[in-house]
């Protein structure tokens, strides 16, 4: 339908609206950021130029290949694609009409800019980043801190290179440096963490080289260890805990040692003996107090790392190649980009962080640019986006080079970089009808057809059930995190006596834990040997009891952990503030069986592991779940709206604009007018629309 026809149609149905002066209409436009911690946006001219350059190169590429770019999409398709692509949800009926009724020539570019600047952009980008980094809020306290840090970093437009450098260079306890969550995510698995770093930020799959020379790329196992050696100083424990123990010992030990008999200065032998005895006493005291505190600080140590200049990475026991010996220290050395050798142990991590995020790193800028391209257009210029080989090919090498330059020019501001991509002509072209072929570089005649992500579906349902949604981030996590930080700080300044009490309790917990484990083993044995159903039941009950005791004992042995449990906020399942929170504001990952997981939401186990594959449970959810029955029943907001509309044509129009973000075509109107007169039939139509491919896929 042409814009003028739509306007005429709208004029017929919304006479009041059309009579309003334009300035009042703009009052309802999506929120252009007023209060923002955002960085200053790039000037419009810079953005248009950058976008045009990309388009020009792309056009040349296609022409040389004898291909024609796809035609430009209509307003309704553009509207839906923009909302979903930029802020991760469909537009509300009101938002849709505002755009479709906007007569100005630059409405498309204005829409892009206002969406990019809106809080919804943050929420949508956060999901992408959290998936990439595997952020989990349920995994210990550091997860929560890391989530808050990431959300904040995105909101304030922290440049990507700075974000990555902060994570790679982080150290200490998570309450003082929450970016340390990046390392804690793979606690005690430093090598796996390193492999992830290489693939996430530099697009290189080198994980296999951990165990042997890489068969296809040029990585040897030794080279893998050379790069991993930059993280060789990382120890997964807290120096704060160590300091606090030492301080407590000093305070507690002082009176006891003062009471020790003075050493007689007369006899040299006696004196030496006395000194030795005193030293042994002191050491024993230190050891005892240290032991008392060990269980208490177990949790502390789980949420911190420290950098030890004396700790170095060594080759594994079963290293079999001739170039070095098993157990040998491996000095850190870079293998591409800037050649860095002879690094002082204390500077390893700083050096690594700078090297990864350097403008001169041959992969850093390209990889993030390509990832964002894939996010905007459904497929990377280089694909797969996390496996760049030396001979990786793209159909558009100059576009890739241009993207790299653009990313650097935008100083790694992800919001502005994406804004440029959204301003390209490519973003307005029809989707390709054929899916990309694995292993074949894609020629971008248009973007790739994708299904809504699980989070986009979740957030779109919010709009459908509520009519509008608050795109702002929820304060629940930040509040929880602040509470935890205060508690930790409080504990670090606690009186030694208080600490001793806590430590005693923790120690007791450990004893109970060992007992519960042994009870469990006995019960297991009894269960296995049970001959009668009664005996089996009894053994089963004992087994369950032992497991529960184990759980309780674990909590007691780990008082910091139980502090988090009672915190609420980050770990509560139902943290949904009246069910109006977007998916990004929920604890991560979502639970198996939840809507987000059923639709392929990431389990945050492996990087970017969300999927959009069709499954039967998804179909069942859209067919039969009450939560997806958005147009039926008295409680349904949309249902109420439809009931209150008098004319069947208007009802149809409302339904289509709400669900598909476009009014019905003349044929559709003719076909479904009669349905719209009957509430049950209209309900069936609404249900059918919700289960349609048109709804699920983003054209």
């Amino acid at each position, binding site marked *: 339908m042409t814009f003028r026809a739509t306007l005429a149609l709208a004029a017929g149905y919304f006479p009041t609206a059309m009579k309003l002066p334009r300035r009042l209409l703009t009052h309802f436009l999506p929120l252009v950021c007023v209060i923002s911690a955002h960085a200053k946006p790039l000037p419009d001219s810079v953005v248009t130029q950058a976008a045009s350059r990309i388009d020009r190169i792309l056009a040349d590429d296609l022409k040389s290949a004898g291909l024609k770019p796809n035609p430009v999409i209509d307003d309704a398709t553009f509207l839906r694609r923009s909302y979903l692509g930029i802020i991760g949800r469909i537009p509300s009926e009101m938002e849709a009409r505002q755009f479709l009724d906007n007569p100005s020539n630059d409405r498309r570019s204005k829409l892009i800019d206002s969406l990019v600047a809106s809080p919804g952009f943050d929420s949508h980008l956060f999901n992408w980043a959290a998936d990439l980094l595997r952020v989990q809020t349920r995994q210990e306290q550091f997860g929560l801190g890391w989530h808050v840090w990431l959300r904040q970093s995105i909101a304030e437009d922290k440049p990507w290179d700075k974000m990555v450098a902060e994570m790679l260079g982080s150290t200490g306890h998570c309450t003082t440096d929450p970016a340390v969550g990046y390392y804690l995510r793979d606690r005690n698995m430093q090598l796996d963490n390193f492999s992830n770093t290489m693939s996430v930020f530099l697009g290189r799959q080198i994980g296999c080289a951990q165990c042997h020379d890489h068969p296809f790329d040029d990585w040897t196992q030794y080279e893998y260890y050379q790069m991993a050696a930059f993280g060789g100083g990382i120890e997964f424990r807290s120096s704060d805990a160590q300091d606090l123990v030492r301080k407590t010992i000093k305070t507690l030990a002082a009176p006891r040692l003062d009471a020790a008999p003075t050493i007689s200065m007369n006899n040299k032998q006696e004196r030496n003996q006395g000194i030795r005895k005193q030293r042994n006493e002191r050491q024993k005291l230190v050891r005892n107090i240290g032991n008392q505190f060990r269980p208490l600080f177990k949790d502390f140590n789980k949420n911190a790392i420290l950098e030890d200049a004396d700790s170095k990475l060594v080759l594994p026991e079963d290293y079999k190649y001739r170039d070095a010996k098993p157990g040998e220290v491996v000095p850190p050395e870079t293998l591409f980009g800037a050649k860095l050798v002879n690094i002082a142990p204390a500077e390893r991590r700083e050096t690594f962080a700078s090297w990864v995020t350097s403008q001169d790193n041959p992969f850093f800028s390209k990889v993030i640019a390509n990832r964002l391209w894939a996010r905007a257009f459904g497929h990377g210029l280089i694909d797969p986006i996390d496996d760049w080989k030396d001979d990786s090919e793209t159909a558009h090498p100059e576009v890739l080079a241009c993207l790299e330059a653009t990313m650097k020019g935008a100083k790694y501001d992800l919001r502005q970089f994406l804004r440029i991509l959204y301003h390209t002509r490519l973003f307005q072209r029809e989707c390709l009808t054929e899916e990309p072929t694995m292993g074949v570089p894609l020629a971008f005649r248009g973007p790739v057809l994708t299904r809504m992500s699980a989070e986009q579906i979740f957030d779109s349902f919010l709009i459908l059930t509520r009519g509008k949604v608050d795109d702002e981030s929820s304060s629940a996590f930040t509040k929880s995190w602040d509470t935890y930080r205060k508690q930790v700080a409080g504990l670090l300044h606690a009186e030694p006596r208080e600490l001793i009490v806590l430590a005693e309790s923790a120690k007791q917990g450990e004893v109970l834990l060992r007992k519960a484990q042994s009870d469990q083993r006995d019960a297991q044995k009894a269960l296995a040997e049970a001959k009668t159903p009664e005996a089996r039941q009894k053994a089963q009950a004992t087994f369950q009891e032992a497991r529960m005791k184990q759980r309780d004992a674990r909590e007691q042995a780990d008082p910091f952990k139980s502090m988090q449990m009672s915190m609420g906020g980050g770990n509560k399942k139902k943290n949904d503030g009246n069910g109006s929170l977007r998916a990004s504001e929920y604890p991560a990952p979502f639970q198996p*069986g939840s809507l987000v997981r059923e639709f392929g939401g990431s389990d945050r186990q492996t990087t970017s592991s969300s999927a959009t594959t069709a499954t039967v449970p998804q179909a069942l959810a859209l067919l039969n779940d009450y939560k997806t029955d958005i147009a039926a029943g008295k409680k349904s907001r949309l249902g109420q709206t439809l009931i209150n509309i008098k004319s069947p044509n208007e009802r149809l129009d409302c339904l289509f604009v709400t669900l598909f973000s476009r009014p019905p075509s003349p044929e559709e109107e003719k076909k479904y007018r009669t349905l719209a007169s009957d509430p049950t039939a209209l309900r069936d139509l609404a249900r059918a629309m919700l289960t349609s491919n048109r709804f699920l896929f983003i054209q």
Partner: protein
Amino acid sequence: MNPNNLDEINRRDFLSRTAKTCFGLTIGGSMARLFDSPAYAADPTVLKAGGGKAKHVIYLYMAGGMTHIDTFDPKPDAASDIRGPVKAISTKVDGIQLGHCLPGLARHTDKVALIRSLSTTQGAHDQGKYLMHTGYAPRGTVSHPSSGSWVAKMTSKLNQDLPPFVLVGGANKHPGAGFFEPEFAPLPIGDPELGLQNVRRRYSTTDASFARQLDLRKELDHDFDTKFHQGQKSVRAYDQVYDAAVTLMKSEDLEAFDLSKEPEVSRAAYGSDRFGQGVLLARRLVERGVRFIEVELGGFDWHADNFDQMEEKIPLLDQALSALLSDLSTRGLLDSTLVVVATEFGRSPKITPNAGRNHYPKAFSCLLAGGGIRGGQVYGATDITASNVVENKIGAHDFNATIAFSLGIPHDLPVMSPTKRPFKMGGLDGKPITSIFG
């Protein structure tokens, strides 16, 4: 039926579908079987060699790399910095020992074959998991199908309403159907306690309403499908799952997914955790004709606190597996159900300063039971520290070939990918371990 001629199968499918529409009605019930593809015939050579007894597979996947030396391949005579605090316990079968966290399984070793000689070169999780499931190392040019999808494709459905392949508690990165069409992808059950959700129509929805809703869906998508159906597998997949969902809703076998229908005693036997209940669900699905059920248990990546975590995690496997073997045996299903316990790699024999074990693909263990496997045996062996395989080394592709063999599927029958390259269930050149059968 010539098992090498897949075109023949397609032709029969086409005929049966046409017959249904020609009669102007859907032939339901037992009549439908008249026109369906005949039950796949197990390859005669396989049958002769002792295979082809299994009709179902229950595949238990331990994600993260389950330590072999603390479970299926204990080394009581190794030094303490290798053995740790783990004791080896005797089992029902003389000469076979297990780690002390498996007392339940110890009473069922007469049913199992411990495979102690797995060895691969994939020591990273993603790659190892992929290799174990598909028999191939990951490549950037093709998505290989997982063993479950192979079974779904190469056998015929025993129950026309239920999916042939169900995945319980699977993590995101599962190879799924790979390049096979979507109908061979697993039906995922996230939480067995929740089961298959949303199987009942919404309240007060009449037959007519529901049918109209389905018709309207096709109508609304007419233009979209015209444009995208052929070129987009993702779109075809949605049409396929809606059809499958509607069929499933009408099935009398839906209650197989409903664990509340199982007696309390039985539920307790498997363990109240998600994994135990998932294994119970697998048994129920086998009884209704589902071919391949995979149940995943995660959290085996013990780089630190290996022994503490072992005490927590292994009992879950022990309880569920013992209950399953006992249950299948009692119900007379053990011969026709292949039980598999697999993992992506083992863990290093030398204990680290963190009391942990690192990834170790060079030698690790899996388990096979039922489906024609001769119980009470060990296949393959490692050296005194479980560091090297010294006898009968096999790889993931051989392992999958063995699964094929137990079902009577030819492990080396090539199926073409869309880019016209051949792939087989047994990987490039996997060979089934035929000696463990019969």
